[in-house]
């Protein structure tokens, strides 16, 4: 009703239509649009946007320059390098292996077995290890990472035996070298280190070696007395036997 009342000049008002048509459930058609009327098509053609084309000569060498310029380094690499440095500083035992083709299942099984012994299996890219290790005392391990590798960290250097035992069962992991108590060791040296007795055993060996000279001297001084005592013992025993034999025969008789 208010829509139909004329309050201003004709043709100056805007009116919402009396009937508004609503789509219900029908699918709209956008795949086969109707060809526009000539007038409409003319307006559409005129109003199409025209974009300015970049002059190719100016950008001809820019793409090559973009490709060949120094790539921006991802700051995440710095974080991972810090993690590597952390692991290296806080592990008493670091063993580096060459890794051959291995299934994820098998490497997981190895990882679990190592984890039970408090040994941590890790692998990082060469660039990150390079970033982590250049300038530190660990720079010498760089040549080991040129090919497929993995690293095992342990806070306790006594675990070397357990580590070798587990990795002996895995033919794809080949021990290359390691760091024990900040000392770089080759493969053979690591195996020898694993065969060494623990600290108490080594101390006992040292004590034995120190006492060896004095012990030998004492032994030399005491040999003759000891021999005499032994011979007397045997003699006494022999006499004792004959005495008991004679007493027994006397009793019988």
């Amino acid at each position, binding site marked *: 009703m208010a829509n139909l009342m004329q309050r201003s000049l004709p043709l100056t008002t805007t009116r919402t239509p009396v009937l508004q048509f609503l789509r219900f459930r029908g699918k709209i058609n956008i795949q086969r649009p109707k060809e526009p009327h000539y007038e409409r098509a003319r307006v559409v053609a005129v109003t199409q946007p025209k974009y300015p084309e970049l002059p190719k000569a100016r950008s001809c060498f820019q793409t090559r320059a973009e490709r060949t310029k120094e790539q921006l380094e991802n700051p995440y690499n710095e974080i991972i390098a810090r993690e590597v440095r952390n692991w290296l500083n806080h592990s008493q035992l670091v063993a580096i292996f*060459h*890794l*051959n*083709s291995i299934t994820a299942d098998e490497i997981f099984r190895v990882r679990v077995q190592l984890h039970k012994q408090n040994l941590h299996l890790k692998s990082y890219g060469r660039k990150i290890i390079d970033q982590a290790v250049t300038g530190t005392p660990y720079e*010498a391990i760089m*040549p*080991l990472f*040129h*090919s*497929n590798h993995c690293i095992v960290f342990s806070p306790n250097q006594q675990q070397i035996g357990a580590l070798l035992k587990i990795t002996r069962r895995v033919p*794809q992991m*080949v*021990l*290359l*070298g390691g760091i024990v108590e900040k000392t770089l060791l*080759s*493969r*053979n*040296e690591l195996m020898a280190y694993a065969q060494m007795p623990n600290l108490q055993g080594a101390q006992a060996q040292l004590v034995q070696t120190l006492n060896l000279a004095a012990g030998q001297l004492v032994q030399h001084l005491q040999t003759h007395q000891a021999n005499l005592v032994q011979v007397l013992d045997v003699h006494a025993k022999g006499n004792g036997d004959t005495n008991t034999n004679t007493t027994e025969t006397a009793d019988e008789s």
Partner: protein
Amino acid sequence: MSVPFSGTLRRSGGIVSAIGKQLKSINLKGVKRITVQFDPFAENVKSTREFFFLLSTPKVIQTNPKCVVKSDIVCDRQAASIKFALIDSAQEQAKVKEIRFNSGNLNTLELLELCNKHVSSLAPPEEVTNKVLTKAEKQKLGGGSKKALKKK
């Protein structure tokens, strides 16, 4: 006058596809043992280690599951080498007992190419067993057991 065509019609896929192509034609049937020896701290062992890795892939191992690939890590700065110990028929064919590659100055692709040239060619030819059984032959083979079942 136009210049006659020169150049390639297809671009090469790079070193990685060349390595892949060589790997496809590798055959270790004529080898009974491979020993890869290197010093891990030496400078030019990258190609030896990569070759070692490629030899351990399942596809290459499948060509001869009996062939053992062993590694020998040394620490006296010896040159890197790869030794292929041949089986008897291959030894007769090549008149040598084993083939040794000094891999210090070779890259991975060259190692694979040499391996294909010298080692894969010594593989004994496969015996083709493509006999297709006819229905009658199949029945003959399994016929006895089937007849017994039918009687029951």
